């Protein structure tokens, strides 16, 4: 399915990407993360199991097993540090 994927803060800088549109072969957030990890390099490093990052689907923070929907906006970002 088609997804809009956004990256923020340290992850945006490390991955060298603020936003992209891609086709995801799977149906969950975990599937998307696996697809991104398969790019290798910094993608595999930053999204490796055990690394701290959060995922929001359509602006709600979700768990890795959350389902994706066609044209969803998926944001991947480091733990937040506001306040």
């Amino acid at each position, binding site marked *: 399915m088609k997804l809009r994927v*956004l990256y*923020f*803060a*340290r992850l945006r800088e490390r991955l060298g990407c603020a936003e992209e549109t891609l086709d995801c072969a799977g149906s969950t957030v975990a599937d998307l993360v696996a697809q991104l990890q398969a790019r290798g390099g910094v993608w595999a490093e930053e999204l490796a199991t055990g690394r*701290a990052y959060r995922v*929001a689907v359509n*602006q*709600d*923070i979700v768990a890795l097993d959350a389902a994706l929907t066609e044209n969803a906006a998926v*944001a991947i*970002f*480091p*733990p*937040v*540090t*506001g*306040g």
Partner: protein
Amino acid sequence: MKILVQSEAFELGAEVDALRRGRTDIGAIASFVGLARDMNDGSDVAAMTLEHYPGMTEKALAALVEEAQSRWTLLDVTLIHRVGRLLPGDPIVLVAVAGSHRGEAFAACEFIMDYLKTRAPFWKKEVTPEGERWVEARASDDVAATRWGKT
């Protein structure tokens, strides 16, 4: 209820005045102002930049306030968070909660800050003598948020 994400500074006195203006049912207003410090993790901080996720930020802040309103009887809430470049001493965030009595005002004010620290999509980048660096999330913030129980 007033929720703002802005680059401009805010003024605590003006915000508290606005909360109470024209009403006589408020018995307590508790407020919190977070400031940019000149020191963090052993390094001097010359400036910081606050990045956020436009759209989600406003939604997340509104959800925090709604959650507080579901837990306590509140008469009004003001929540302002700044973004962009800030200097040491600059105000970053303001929470002001009006209630009938101090108990709910104190509790809701602290609750909103604890949840904001772990749920609102803001990220700080500091300028230090060693270069620019992203601030790492603190485990103590997760602990502070969990003491309020599950939502």
